C-alpha cells in the first residue's frame, strides 16, 4: 500500500454544498419534486406483544381520497428473514408501535385522519420490556449475542481475574448503567417510493444506498438492478439510517399498490421512537484491581444489553476495554436479553459510547482510591503493545493527548479534593477521561474514475454525505489521489447508479471509499503510462477499482485515541448542572479537512454532553413504549446547553491505516465525554453517579 501526498488534504475548505444548504436548496429525500404524489400514514400497535384478532378498515376506506388500506390480509408477501422488515406479514405483534396497517391517500391530511379510523383489536399477552429485571439472578432471557462487529472477539479472557482481584491492594467493583437513547436526527426517516415496470425508484434518507438496494431487492424478490436508491443529502442519521427498516419496506409496498404513482412517506417524530432503532440500554459491571502504585493487575468488564425478539442487534459495549490498559489478568463478557421491544441499532460510537462511560468512570474511582492523579494513573497503565491482540499499535498517542489536554485545560492547578471549589452557590469540578475508537474499514466499495482529455475527473461512488462533509473531504482525497486540483474533481455520490459503496458508518467512510478512489487513481495512472503514453486519450479513460485489502491489518492494531476534559458547575441548592467548558484532544491520523473534521468532533462532544445530562427514553413498563417520544420531552442539547468547546488534535503520520493516513473522526468525539462529566460531577460534589443521565434529582439529598 502506498500513501498519497497531501496537497488538498489538510486544507480547511468550506463545504462544497454549503451555499445550497444555507438557502435550503439542497434536496433531502422528501423534497425531490414528483408529480401527483400519494401519501402514506401507518397505524401502530397498541400492545407490546400479542395477536391481532380483528381489523376494521371500513371507516378509513370510506373516507374520500383514500386510495388503499394495507393490512396483513392484503399486503404483498415478502421474502426476508429480517424480522424488522417483515411488515404486515402476520397477525403477530412483537413490540408496541409495530406497524399493523397503513393508509395511502391523496393528501397527507387525509391519510393521517383515515389511519386514526382503522380499528385494530388485539389479544395481548404478558410482555417483558424491562432490562433491569434481567440482572443476575433472573437470567432466563440472557444469552451471548450471535454476532457483533467481526473484527473483535465477543468475549476475552487472559490470566485469572478473580484471583488477581482477591489479592489486589486496591479494588474497584461497581455497576454502571446507561439508558435507552434515541438518535433524533433532525430529518425524520423519509421516503418517496415509485413502482414502475422497471422496478422501484426510492428517494430515501439513508446512510447506505447500496445496502438499502440489496435489502429491498431481497424482500420483494427483485434483482438489485430493479431497485434504484437515491440519497444526495441526508439530514443527519447517526446510525439510525444504516439498515433498512420497516418504513422503507412499507413505502415500497405502498408504491406497489399504486403503480406509477410516487408515494411519499415521512415518519412523524413520535413514530421514529419505535420504528427507527435506538442505542440499547446497558447494565455494566467493571472490576479493577491494582497495586497501591496504581498499576493494574486486573481489568474485568461485563455488559448486559437488550435486543428484540424479531432480530438481534447487539452493541459491543466492552469492545474498547481490551485496547486500553495493560494488566496481566483481563476479561470481557457481553450478554443480551431478548425483550418485547423494537430492535435497537447502531448509534454514534456503538459500544464505545456506553462502555467507555463505565470503564473511564471506574478508572477515576481507582485513581481516587490510590490517591493518584487520574492522568498519571492512565499513563502508568499505558501498554507497550495491544493488550489483547499482542500487536504493536500502528500509532497510539493517548498519553500525548492526555498531556496536551492537561496543559491546555490548566489541569495542573487542580486541587483533587471534592467540593473544594465554590463560586456564588455553585460547586465547581473538573474531570478527565480517555477516548478510543478502532480504525475500521467496511467491505463492498468500488470507485470509478473517468478522466477526460481536458484534465477533469469524474469520480463516481455510491457513498453518501450524512452531514459529515463526505462530499468535500472525499473530493480532497480524490484530488490528492489523482495529483490534481480540487477544481478538477467532479465527485458524484448518493445514487445506486454509481459503483456500490459501503454504508457511512463506524467512522470508516473515508477509509473504505477513499482507499477505493486511491486504488482507481493508481490504476488510471498505470494505464495512462503503459497504454497511452501518459496522456488521456481524446475519448477519455475510465477505471473502476475495489477497496484493496490492507496487508498491515494482520501486523498492527489500529485505533484512534483522545482525551476528554470537562468543567462542571453544580448548584448547591437546586442541583442544576451546567458544563461551561469542554476540551478534547484527539489523535485520529491525518485530518483531511480541518474545518469539517473539527465540526464532527465538536458535534460528538456535544452528543457526549447530551447523553450525560439530558437524554433518556423513558419506558412505560405497563405498555412497553417510550412515553417522552418528542423533542420537548426527550431533550437533546440545545444551544444554551453548550458552553465553550475546544477541539485540538495531534499531528499523526500513520502509513499503515490506509493510503490517506486517516483514522476517522465521526465517533471518537462522543467517547469518554460522559465519564469526564461524571468524574467532574464527583469532583464538584463528592457524589459519584453511575447511572446516566446525571440529573439533578440524583445530586440532591434524600
Amino acid at each position, binding site marked *: 500500500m502506498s500513501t498519497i501526498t497531501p496537497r488538498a488534504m489538510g486544507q480547511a475548505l*468550506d*463545504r462544497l*454544498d*454549503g*451555499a*445550497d*444548504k*444555507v*438557502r*435550503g*436548496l*439542497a*434536496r*433531502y429525500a*422528501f*423534497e425531490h*419534486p414528483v408529480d401527483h404524489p400519494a401519501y402514506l400514514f401507518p397505524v401502530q400497535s397498541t400492545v407490546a406483544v400479542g395477536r391481532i384478532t380483528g381489523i376494521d378498515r371500513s371507516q378509513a376506506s370510506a373516507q374520500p381520497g383514500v386510495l388503499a388500506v394495507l393490512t396483513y390480509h392484503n399486503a404483498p408477501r415478502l421474502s426476508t428473514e429480517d424480522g424488522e422488515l417483515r411488515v404486515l406479514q402476520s397477525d403477530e405483534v412483537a413490540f408496541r408501535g409495530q406497524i399493523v396497517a397503513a393508509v395511502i391517500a391523496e*393528501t*397527507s*391530511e*387525509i391519510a393521517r*385522519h383515515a389511519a386514526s379510523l382503522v380499528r385494530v383489536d388485539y389479544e395481548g399477552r404478558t410482555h417483558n420490556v424491562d432490562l433491569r429485571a434481567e440482572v443476575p439472578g433472573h437470567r432466563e432471557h440472557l444469552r451471548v449475542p450471535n454476532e457483533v462487529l467481526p473484527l473483535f472477539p465477543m468475549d476475552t479472557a487472559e490470566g485469572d481475574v478473580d484471583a488477581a482481584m482477591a489479592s489486589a491492594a486496591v479494588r474497584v467493583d461497581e455497576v454502571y448503567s446507561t439508558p435507552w437513547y434515541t*438518535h*433524533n*436526527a*433532525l*430529518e*425524520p426517516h423519509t421516503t418517496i417510493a415509485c413502482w414502475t415496470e422497471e422496478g422501484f425508484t426510492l428517494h430515501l434518507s439513508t446512510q447506505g444506498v447500496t445496502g438499502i438496494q440489496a435489502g429491498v431487492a431481497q424482500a420483494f424478490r427483485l434483482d438489485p438492478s430493479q431497485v434504484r436508491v437515491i440519497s444526495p*443529502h*441526508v*439530514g*443527519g*442519521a*447517526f446510525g439510525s439510517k444504516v439498515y433498512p427498516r420497516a418504513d422503507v419496506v412499507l413505502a415500497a409496498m405502498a408504491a406497489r399498490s399504486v403503480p406509477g404513482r410516487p408515494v411519499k412517506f*415521512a415518519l412523524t*417524530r413520535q413514530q421514529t421512537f419505535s420504528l427507527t432503532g435506538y442505542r440499547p440500554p446497558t447494565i455494566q459491571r467493571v472490576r479493577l484491581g491494582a497495586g497501591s502504585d496504581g498499576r493494574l493487575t486486573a481489568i474485568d468488564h461485563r455488559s448486559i444489553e437488550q435486543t428484540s425478539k424479531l432480530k438481534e442487534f447487539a452493541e459491543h459495549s466492552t469492545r474498547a476495554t481490551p485496547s486500553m490498559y495493560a494488566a496481566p489478568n483481563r476479561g470481557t463478557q457481553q450478554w443480551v436479553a431478548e425483550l418485547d421491544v423494537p430492535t435497537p441499532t447502531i448509534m454514534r460510537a456503538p459500544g464505545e459510547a456506553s462502555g467507555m462511560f463505565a470503564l473511564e468512570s471506574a478508572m477515576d474511582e481507582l485513581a481516587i482510591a490510590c490517591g493518584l492523579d487520574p492522568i498519571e494513573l492512565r499513563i502508568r497503565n499505558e501498554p507497550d503493545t495491544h493488550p489483547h491482540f499482542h500487536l504493536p499499535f500502528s500509532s497510539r498517542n493517548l498519553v500525548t493527548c492526555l498531556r496536551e489536554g492537561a496543559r491546555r485545560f490548566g489541569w495542573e492547578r487542580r486541587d483533587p479534593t471534592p467540593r473544594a471549589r465554590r463560586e456564588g452557590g455553585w460547586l465547581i469540578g473538573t474531570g478527565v477521561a480517555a477516548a478510543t475508537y478502532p480504525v475500521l474499514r467496511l467491505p463492498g466499495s468500488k470507485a470509478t474514475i473517468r478522466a477526460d482529455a481536458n484534465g477533469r475527473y469524474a469520480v463516481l461512488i455510491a457513498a453518501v454525505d*450524512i*452531514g459529515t462533509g463526505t462530499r468535500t473531504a472525499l473530493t480532497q482525497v480524490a484530488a490528492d489521489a489523482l495529483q490534481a486540483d480540487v477544481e478538477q474533481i467532479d465527485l458524484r455520490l448518493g445514487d445506486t447508479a454509481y459503483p456500490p459503496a459501503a454504508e457511512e458508518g463506524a467512522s470508516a467512510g473515508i477509509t473504505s471509499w477513499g482507499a477505493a478512489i486511491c486504488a482507481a487513481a493508481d490504476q488510471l495512472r498505470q494505464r495512462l503510462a503503459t497504454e497511452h503514453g501518459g496522456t488521456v486519450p481524446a475519448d477519455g479513460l475510465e477505471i473502476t477499482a475495489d477497496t484493496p485489502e490492507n496487508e498491515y491489518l494482520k501486523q498492527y492494531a489500529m485505533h484512534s485515541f483522545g482525551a476528554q476534559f470537562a468543567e462542571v458547575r453544580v448548584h448547591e441548592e437546586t442541583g442544576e448542572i451546567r458544563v461551561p467548558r469542554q476540551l478534547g484532544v484527539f489523535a485520529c491520523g491525518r485530518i483531511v479537512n480541518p*474545518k*469539517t473534521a*473539527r*465540526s*464532527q468532533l*465538536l*458535534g460528538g*462532544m*456535544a*452528543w457526549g454532553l*447530551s447523553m450525560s445530562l439530558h437524554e433518556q427514553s423513558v419506558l412505560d413498563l405497563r405498555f412497553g413504549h417510550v412515553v417522552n417520544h*418528542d*423533542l*420537548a420531552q426527550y431533550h*437533546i*442539547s*440545545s*444551544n*444554551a*446547553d*453548550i458552553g*465553550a468547546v475546544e477541539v485540538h488534535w495531534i499531528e499523526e503520520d500513520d502509513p499503515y491505516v490506509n493510503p490517506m493516513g486517516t483514522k476517522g473522526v465521526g465517533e471518537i468525539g462522543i467517547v469518554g465525554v460522559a465519564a469526564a462529566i461524571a468524574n467532574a460531577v464527583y469532583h464538584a460534589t463528592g457524589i459519584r453517579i453511575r447511572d446516566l443521565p446525571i440529573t439533578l434529582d440524583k445530586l440532591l439529598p434524600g
Partner: protein
Amino acid sequence: MEAEVTFRVDGTSHRLTVDVRTTLLDALRERLGNTSAKKGCDHGQCGACTVLLDGQRVNSCLALAVAHDGAEIVTAAGLASDGELHPLQSAFIRHDAFQCGYCTPGQIVSAVGMLREAEAGWPSAVTAGQPADGGSGGSDGPTVGILTDDEVRERMSGNLCRCAAYANIVPAIQEVARG
C-alpha cells in the same frame, strides 16, 4: 373542508386552495414546492420550519395556512437576493455552522428574526435586569447590550441542531451582529 388563501412567499404571490388542516409548512413544502423550511418535529419543538411571517420568526408547522391569508412569508431561500447570499448565510458557511444542513435554513431565518428582536430592545431570559437573573427588573427595566455568547445561545435555543454545530453558530451570528 377547503379554503382559498393568498400568500407572498420570498417576493412572489401565490393563490391556492388548501385543506383547512394544512399547516403553513406543508403548504409551502407540498403545495408551493418551496422546501427551504424543513419539517423536523411538526410540533414547534425543533425550529427547523422557522420562517419570517410578516417580519417575525415563527414555527410554520404550528401555523395553519388558512389562518394566514394575505401573509408575507420569507424563507431562507428568499434571504439571498440576486444570487448574493445574505451575510448570515455567508457567515454560516465560513464558520461551518452546520453539518447535515437540515436545521440550517431555520437557524438562519431565526437568526435574522432574533437580531431584529435584539435591536428592538427585546430582552431574553439571560438579559441583565431580568427577574430570572436575580436583578430587580426595577424602574430601569432590562438592558439589551451586545449579544454576548450567553445572549445568542439563549435566543437561538428554539432551533435545535442535532449535529450540534452550536459552537460555530454562535460566533457566525455574532460576526454579523457586529457588522
